[in-house]
């Protein structure tokens, strides 16, 4: 036990968690913490808006596999974080957000910059808590990192009233934390793996659908090994892109509303569908009643509450994807199956690919977006990192920009947050300064968070933003063209800023 201020305990607790980078915007209710950060080894990357700070922490987490950390002051600082917190949480990204709060003595009085961020963020986080005493801070910090990064990863918010930062108390730093009722178990039940193997061994038309859970569990090696053993085509969700190299012969592309024809047809015609670390959202399944109608679905997921939530399964394996896929592989390779009979099924992959390839349109004189995606891919090394914004740019990137490894392609999948890609790219660059980072953007999305250009420059986190500039909110305009009789309204962006002229200093440039 040692006496120190809450702010001092907070920074020490961050250091004990190994936090090197914190993304944030300062303000009145976090001044004591900022004062402690002065001179500490924790790098404070200053965003220009709190939403950007949360997305930077999110991008950092996705690129590094570590917990991303962001901080904001009370009131508007805290509410500005919420979109970023919800974006990370729905995509199961480990993120810890710290918010300043007005002193406990005035909580509930509508004090200056007071909001009930615990109430506001309750449904957008995996867990949230407000500290009531300085001595609670080390346990709260440790708990937040533990909850964010175990079981199904997610976002945790810790609210820190200003007086708990200022006051001093005897504190101790726990080595581990315990929560009654929260004991995530990564180990799959062997019987569940046996049942999965029984189904897979009889499959004539197996398909594997891989999601972000494969990335989170670092299980892409196990996934590819199993696919090759089964000779099963692999489709991914947006979150799973990269778990199998795009140029692997078994890769069928993205599945869903903007999936490839081959992926959607193979899923539709499969007899056994092995879904790993994916939650089968509406964008992936399309109309649920017609989703993979003839297949037996095996669902592998760390989160038991996902099983049978959207799609009824025949069997499930609850646990860590790496352990589950490894266990299934070991059992299946011991069976020495002859998969040569799968040639007919694999030929379907090629057939559907030919049948459903969208026609290549000539330039008019604009470049076509798929062509831009391929040119960008050719200009980058295989291990470059790419983020996307949301809308047409995102779907062109998902379809036509190849990814060759997990944790190289990042997108806001669940929440579909426009403006995510640019700050997320800055966070990814902070995590991996050794790799080039590109944000594949649209003009609409980029306008939402372009203010963070200043952060790139002053923090020396250079990223390349490729703006697919069509001067409209493209995806909405596409729906208006296709489904609303071309009645375009509220999509014209013809008066956006000149992106090439957006130059915060001499160390950034436009082309």
């Amino acid at each position: 036990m040692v006496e120190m201020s809450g702010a001092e305990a907070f920074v020490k607790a961050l250091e004990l968690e190994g936090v090197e980078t914190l993304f944030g915007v300062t303000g009145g209710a976090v001044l004591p913490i900022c004062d402690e950060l002065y001179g500490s080894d924790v790098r404070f990357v200053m965003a220009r808006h709190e939403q950007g700070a949360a997305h930077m922490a999110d991008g950092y987490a996705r690129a590094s596999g570590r917990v991303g950390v962001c901080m904001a002051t009370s009131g508007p600082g805290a509410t500005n974080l919420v979109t970023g917190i919800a974006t990370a949480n729905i995509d199961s990204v480990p993120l810890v957000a710290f918010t300043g709060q007005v002193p406990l003595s005035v909580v509930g009085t509508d004090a200056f910059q007071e909001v009930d961020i615990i109430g506001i963020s309750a449904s957008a986080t995996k867990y949230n808590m407000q500290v009531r005493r300085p001595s609670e801070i080390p346990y709260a910090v440790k708990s937040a990192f533990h909850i964010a990064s175990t079981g199904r990863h997610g976002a945790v918010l810790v609210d820190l009233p200003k007086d708990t930062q200022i006051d001093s108390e005897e504190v101790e730093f726990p080595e581990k934390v315990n929560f009654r009722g929260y004991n995530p178990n990564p180990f799959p039940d062997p019987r569940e793996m046996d049942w999965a193997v029984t189904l897979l061994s009889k499959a004539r038309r197996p398909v594997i659908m891989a999601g972000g859970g494969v990335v989170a569990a670092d299980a892409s090696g196990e996934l590819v090994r199993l696919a090759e053993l089964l000779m099963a085509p692999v489709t991914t969700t947006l979150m799973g892109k990269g778990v199998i190299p795009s140029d692997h012969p078994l890769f069928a592309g993205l599945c869903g509303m903007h999936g490839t024809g081959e992926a959607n047809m193979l899923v539709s015609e499969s007899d056994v569908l092995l879904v790993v670390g994916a939650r089968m959202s509406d964008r992936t399944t399309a109309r649920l009643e017609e989703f993979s109608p003839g297949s037996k679905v095996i669902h592998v997921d760390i989160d038991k509450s996902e099983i049978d939530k959207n799609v009824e399964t025949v069997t499930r394996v609850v646990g860590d994807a790496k352990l589950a896929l490894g266990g299934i592989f070991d059992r299946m390779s011991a069976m020495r199956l002859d998969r040569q009979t799968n040639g007919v099924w694999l030929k379907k992959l090629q057939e559907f690919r030919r049948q459903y390839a969208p026609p290549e349109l000539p330039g008019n004189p604009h470049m076509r977006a798929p062509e831009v995606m391929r040119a960008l891919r050719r200009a980058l090394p295989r291990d470059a990192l790419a983020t996307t914004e949301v809308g047409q740019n995102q779907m062109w990137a998902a379809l036509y920009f190849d990814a060759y490894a997990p944790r190289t392609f990042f997108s806001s999948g669940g929440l579909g947050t426009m403006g995510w890609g640019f700050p997320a790219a800055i966070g990814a660059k902070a995590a991996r300064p050794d790799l080039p980072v590109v944000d594949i953007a649209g003009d609409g999305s980029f306008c939402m968070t372009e203010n963070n250009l200043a952060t790139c420059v002053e923090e020396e986190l250079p990223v390349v933003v490729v703006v697919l500039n069509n001067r409209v909110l493209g995806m909405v305009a596409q729906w208006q063209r296709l489904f609303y009789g071309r009645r375009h309204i509220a999509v014209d962006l013809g008066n956006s800023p000149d992106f090439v002229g957006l130059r915060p200093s001499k160390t950034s440039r436009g082309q």
Partner: protein
Amino acid sequence: MKDAVDAEVTTVIDVSIDPEENVFPMVPPGKGLRNILVEA
């Protein structure tokens, strides 16, 4: 693009595309996965 990547400087590249260009393939909202549009 290659130049921008190699330069290690924050760069915004403005690529003009057709405002009428659609993303395909697409399954229309409310339809099953087999209903794949590849052109308008």
